[in-house]
């Protein structure tokens, strides 16, 4: 479930950066070698990575700090 929400966030954020990507793709048509690097960099929005890292870290923190006993899950023999 958290991964589903994360996927939605990534899709929303990628849509927002679509216009940036178009500029870069346009530059590729102009055969500028440097734009290849730009394309790789702009394809993944740094903010998405930041959100993903924050969520993963918080979940790991919660798993280690919290102590819920899930019956029938990991807690059972």
């Amino acid at each position: 479930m958290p991964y589903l929400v994360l996927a939605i966030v990534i899709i929303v954020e990628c849509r927002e950066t679509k216009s940036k990507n178009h500029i870069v793709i346009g530059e590729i048509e102009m055969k500028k070698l440097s734009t290849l690097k730009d394309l790789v960099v702009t394809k993944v929005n740094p903010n998405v990575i930041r959100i993903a890292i924050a969520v993963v870290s918080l979940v790991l923190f919660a798993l280690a700090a919290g102590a819920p006993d899930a019956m029938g899950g990991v807690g059972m023999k």
Partner: protein
Amino acid sequence: MIFAIAANFGLVAGIIRAKKRSTAYTPSVLKHLWIVFLGFLPQFFVFFLPVTREQIPNQWVPVILIGSQLLLLLFVWLNRKQAGIWLMGFGLILNLIVICLNNGWMPISPETLDQLQVSSNSWQLWQRHGFSKDMVIPVSDTRAWILSDVFKINLFNFYKVAFSLGDVLVAGGIFTFLWSAGAPKSLHKEYAK
């Protein structure tokens, strides 16, 4: 599951908040994240990975659990100015207190297990409950009982979980952190103060 709910609600509420104000959803940068991974790693081997958790003796569990939670406490201290982190830290301290007072285990009472309709064949008094952090201890012998796994969720016998007040605060901290990421930038500075 309560952590997953808190993370999902926090994320969704924060994004809606950001969209309403036409600002970017930007979570604060957490410092020294490696401490979280370092703190989680021993617990991964002790509680989650089937191959290793069967090999590790129960006597080691309290030491590993408390050591790993102390590392998390250090992480909380280093990031104490971030929104929600202090709440997560408070929850962690409450869990740490009850675990330390009960010889390194989170107590769970037979009554709680009964109320969750857990088969009595699967647990014994004064024994670890499965591969969890919990030890089955009678209420009368539990120190700081109110901080132990006293809250229960039983979703149609499909998902059963017992959790503590500390867990609730940790979940609240996660929600607050993710929700505050949708605040205007001026408020980000306020949160960081």
